[in-house]
Every structure is written in structure tokens, then in C-alpha cells.
């Protein structure tokens, strides 16, 4: 039997290495997630990139996963922390299934669990460096909520994380309305993802859109959006101002 002895560097106030067990900065990160409630449930979109600082290291990361029968979890931020959260939720769902009582954890319950976990880690100065989006449908009622790495938690009709806060939220506030059809919902999400593709440096042109309804979860195959670069002004931008750019 081997025991791992925890590194005891002493008091964090006096010793600089004492906090070497805390998360200080993220390494491999995912960019924004955008999600909306629509007529039959919830739609969520994300790209499939994992950046390592300013390098685009991974291009095939699924940042949206199904949780149990009723929920979808999307995460932006540190990918390893997202994988850890998936393990926690796996255990949670497993224990729930073992009761075998016909009940199952709905999106509201999972959201609450995640809020507790995130806030608790934040209080110990060792956060899980993610912003999570939790969407789901149970007994006909759709639910969409968000938890940040410091434990800020709320639910809303449309959410966006990361850069999506600045670029997608204005569009959603303007154009979301209740009872969107599936096609309109997808078009709205694609509009937001396209703007993010143009203006977020860590976004890539490879997306997945996930849908959750009373029937279950569907996560689409990866696909890309068309972009437009043919503005006349971009062809020779400094025609009128030689020497500048």
C-alpha cells in the first residue's frame, strides 16, 4: 500500500508555495456557449475548439453532454475541470438510478447541485474554472440556467457564456421570443455563433447544436457555417488612404 502524503507547505500567508494546490489559471479552455428555450425544449450551441493559451490545440472537443434523461450540460472554461464535473455528475446520476424508484433528477435539481459544488469550491479558493449552462425538460416544463466559477447562478430564457455575453446577448435580447419553432431557434443560434466566429479569436468554424425535448437528447454532428468575406471595402481597404491600413 502506498500513501500519498499531501504537500504541506505551511501557512499561505507566510509561505509563497503554500497555495500550489489551488487552481490559479486555466490551461486548456473552451470559448462561449449559447443556449435558448424554444417551443419544445432547449437548444444549445457550442464550437468544438480547445485552446491552449493562444494556440488552437484541440479541434474535436465536445463541450455539450447529456446528463441523465432530462438535462444537457454545456461548459466553457477549463476543459479538465469540465471533465471532473462530468465525473461528479456521473456519480450523482448513478446513485439516483440505484434507488430504482421511478424518479429521476431533473434539470432544476442538477442545476442546484452544480451551484453548490461551484460555490463550495470558490469558498475554498480552489475554483472549478468553468461557466456551466444547464438546460433540460421535465414533465413538459423547460428549464435553462447558468452557473459561473464563483457560484453565481440564475435561470433565464436565453443564456450565453464568455464572449457570448457581449456579442450574443444583445442579439438574443432583441430577437428571442417565446415559442420559437425549431428552425427559427436554430437560425437564431447560428446568427449568434456566426458573429462569435467573426469576432472571437478563440472560436473555430466547427459547431454542434444540441436539442433537448421531452423525448430526449439529440446532439448534432459537427458542421460549419458559411461566412462572407466579399465586401468590396475589404478587397482594397486603403484605396482612398494610401499608406495606412
Amino acid at each position, binding site marked *: 500500500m502506498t500513501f500519498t502524503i499531501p504537500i504541506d507547505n505551511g501557512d499561505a500567508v507566510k509561505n509563497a508555495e503554500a497555495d500550489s494546490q489551488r487552481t490559479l489559471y486555466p490551461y486548456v479552455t473552451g470559448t462561449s456557449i449559447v443556449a435558448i428555450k424554444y417551443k419544445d425544449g432547449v437548444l444549445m450551441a457550442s464550437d468544438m475548439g480547445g485552446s491552449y493559451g493562444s494556440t488552437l490545440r484541440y479541434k474535436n472537443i465536445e463541450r455539450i453532454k447529456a446528463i441523465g434523461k432530462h438535462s444537457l450540460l454545456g461548459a466553457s472554461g477549463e476543459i479538465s475541470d469540465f471533465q471532473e464535473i462530468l465525473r461528479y455528475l456521473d456519480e450523482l446520476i448513478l446513485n439516483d438510478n440505484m434507488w430504482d424508484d421511478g424518479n429521476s433528477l431533473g434539470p432544476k435539481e442538477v442545476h442546484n447541485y452544480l451551484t453548490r459544488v461551484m460555490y463550495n469550491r470558490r469558498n475554498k479558493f480552489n475554483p472549478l474554472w468553468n461557466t456551466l449552462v444547464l438546460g433540460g425538460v421535465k414533465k413538459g416544463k423547460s428549464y435553462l440556467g447558468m452557473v459561473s466559477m464563483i457560484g453565481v447562478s440564475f435561470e433565464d430564457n436565453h443564456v450565453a457564456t464568455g*464572449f457570448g455575453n*457581449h*456579442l*450574443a*446577448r*444583445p*442579439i438574443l*435580447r*432583441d430577437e428571442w421570443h417565446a415559442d420559437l419553432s425549431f428552425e427559427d431557434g436554430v437560425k437564431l443560434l447560428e*446568427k449568434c455563433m*456566426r*458573429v462569435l466566429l*467573426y*469576432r472571437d479569436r478563440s472560436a473555430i468554424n466547427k459547431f454542434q447544436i444540441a436539442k433537448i425535448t421531452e423525448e430526449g437528447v439529440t446532439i448534432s454532428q459537427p458542421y460549419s457555417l458559411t461566412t462572407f468575406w466579399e*465586401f*468590396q*471595402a*475589404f478587397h482594397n*481597404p*486603403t484605396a*482612398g*488612404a*494610401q499608406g*495606412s*491600413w
Partner: protein
Amino acid sequence: MSQSSVDLPPKGGFSFDLCKRNDMLTQKGLKAPSFLKTGTTIVGLIFQDGVILGADTRATEGPIVADKNCEKIHYMAPNIYCCGAGTAADTEAVTDMVSSQLRLHRYQTGRDSRVITALTLLKKHLFSYQGHVSAALVLGGVDISGPHLHTIYPHGSTDTLPFATMGSGSLAAMSVFEAKYKEGLTRDEGIKLVAEAICSGIFNDLGSGSNVDICVITKGHKEYLRNYMEPNPRTYVSSKGYTFTKKTEVLLTKITPLSERVKVVEVAGEAMEE
């Protein structure tokens, strides 16, 4: 070895005399000024006949709104206007200065000013101050070589674009532009899109607010639409007006119309034109 300490005249280029002193100050804890993106949404776009500039009207002093209806679209020349974000004093001073330089240049050459002239004067000035003059500008105008739209950053770099946004609300406004801009917009479509972008900044960014100002510049003609849209009116002002408490004794009531005492003269359009 002879010691030669000759004071050579400055030959141009950079002078590094203060570097050692700046290093010492940084070590002592003085932070160098960083890029300040202050409360504003300013935008510009090129449409089929010219340029449309837009701005919100909120001036902030930290968390407080200092001016609810300030003017952020500055006059540079009869055919060139400039929106300014950043430190208000800096944007005012730098646009006033370049505006007067342009006027003198017009007198000397006898020709209308060109947008790249304003651009070069502004960027030279801002670069020489290494970003300490915190002015982020959207410069637009129509001159003999067509419509032009440029953005100028506090450190002196410029961009030439078909549509541009600056200020803290720039992302909110840019998301509207990226989703809806097309080439060859008509005047009304352009104004509508600019107003939408500014409203997006006003409602989604805390540093921007109040009203929308718009300036449309076409060949030989310009329209300054001050307070084109007022999407934040004061509500709940009591419709009953003010009444004195019932116990007040009214001694005398005399109403003197102001027009008898004061003569108001309309000065024919001299405010900002040549």
C-alpha cells in the same frame, strides 16, 4: 581618454532619456497608463451615397453619469465629422486642434479637406503621445475621392473599414453590424442600422445610455441629427404639475411673459459651419 559631453541637437526619432527614470518609477510601484475603454458606444458605416456616424450621449465619471446628453460627434470640416470615445477632454481637444489645422490648410490650398488629411494629423499627434492621450475615434467623411471611414486608436494605429464601432459598447454594436450589414445600403436602411447598433450599446452596456445622435454625410451635403432617437424618456413625471400646500396664502399673482423683456435673435446657422 577625453570626456566629451557635447549637447547634440535632437535629430528626430525617439528620445530614450526618460527610460531609466520610468523604470525606477515602475519599480517603486507606479503603474503605466493602460488602454482606457470608457463608457461610450460610437459607430460608423459606409452606405451607397456616403458615411453615417452614430453615437450615444452618456458621459460617465466612474460609476456616475456626469452628462446625460453630451455631444460625441465632433465637427472637423464641413464634409468630415469625428466620433470620440475615451477621456472626454482628450477627444474634444484633439478634434478641435485638428479641426483648426484643417481650416488653416483649407485657406492655404483653396480646396476642401480630405479625410486622410484629418487621419494623418490625428494619428501623428496620438502616436507621439504614446497612448497617453486617451482618444479612440471614428472618423468619417466624404471628399473628392469618395466616402471614407476610419478608426483611430489611442496609440496611433488606424483601420479603414466599411463599418466600425468603438468604446465600451463596441461589442454590442458590432454584433448588430456583423449580423445585419450589407453593401449598398440606402440612406434610410443605413440610419436604421446605425440607430439599432447604438441602441444595442445603450441597452446592453452600462457605460452607454440616453439618446442616439446621428450624422449623415454625403457628397456636398451633411445632416447632423442631434437626438435622432430618445429611447430613454423620463417617465412618471406627475401630470398634475406642482401645487402649493393648501395652507399657503396667495398674496399677489403677476405673470410677465419673457418675450416682452428679452429679444431672442436667431443667428442664421453660424454655430458650427464656416
